[in-house]
């Protein structure tokens, strides 16, 4: 997705230069929400201020929204087929594999210090042992990071 975006925004349309693209990509990654929405907002804003941001977000939302809506309409009919169920289960197994792979990659990239190790074990316990709502765990992580963390 990102190489495609770069080809269109930087090389073809020349809305952004290489440096701006990298900057927007790195900021998009560290803010909440979908990377696509974040990048669309920022790119749109650079080109045409508020309405540029708004319209690029609307534009990037329409295709996935349409596709999922169409699938959702026919979902009830198709999901009853055993083969479709098996297809879905196969995909789910793939997702579990990919998520594990992503986790491993992120683990390797993290520079662990004492604070982070404690936070990791603590949030793991909250999630898997005490079944705390993950929303609170994110908030606990955020606040403790600001107060006690060292950053990267």
């Amino acid at each position, binding site marked *: 997705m990102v190489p495609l975006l770069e080809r269109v925004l930087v090389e073809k349309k020349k809305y952004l230069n290489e440096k701006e693209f990298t900057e927007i990509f790195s900021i998009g990654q560290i803010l909440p929400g979908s990377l696509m929405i974040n990048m669309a907002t920022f790119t749109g804003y650079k080109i045409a201020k*508020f309405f540029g941001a708004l319209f690029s977000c609307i534009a990037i939302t329409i295709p996935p929204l349409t596709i999922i809506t169409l699938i959702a309409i026919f979902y009830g009919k198709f999901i009853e087929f055993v083969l479709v169920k098996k297809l*879905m289960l196969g995909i789910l197994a793939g997702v579990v594999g990919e998520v594990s*792979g992503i986790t491993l990659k992120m683990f390797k990239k993290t520079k662990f210090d004492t604070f982070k190790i404690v936070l990791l074990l603590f949030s793991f316990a909250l*999630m898997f042992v005490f079944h705390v709502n993950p929303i609170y765990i994110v908030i606990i992580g955020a606040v403790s990071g*600001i107060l006690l963390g060292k950053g990267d």
Partner: protein
Amino acid sequence: MLLLKIFLEFCKIGIIAFGGGNAIFPILHREVVENLHWIGEQDFLYMVSIAETTPGPIGMNLSTFIGHRLAGFPGALVATIGYDFLPFLIMLFVAIAVVRLRENKIYRRFLSAVMVVVLVLLMRAAYLMAAGGFHDFRPYLLALAAFIAFVKFKKLNPIYLLIICGLVGMFCF
């Protein structure tokens, strides 16, 4: 009223959606399946399979799908807008004010801690999917194969990998 509730629920999820679409899986699961009982466990897992293999961000796809299930197209629309609304405002603010987030010490502390929690969220995501969806050893084997392929072949498009897994599932499960 239901539409407003959907909108606010997805606003809440959007604002803490750090670290990519997979990390919001446990959050959505807790809110939508366990707390609100909007979607059944099995249905939710099917939705995840679909959201992961269709174009568009995973979190947004899931929001659209769940919204549609609850209140038809208007539901899909408000869930999607809700999910994107606060990140849009934040991003807009950052763009307008030219906030130098990367150099901001407090934000870096905030982010590096949140990313540690994201690791746990991802583990929880894999756990919930396997515990809820895998009924014998075969999906575990396929997941292991997908894991190895994902780590070994960095150039492999993740969506193709998922489609291959789906086809394997169709014939082997």
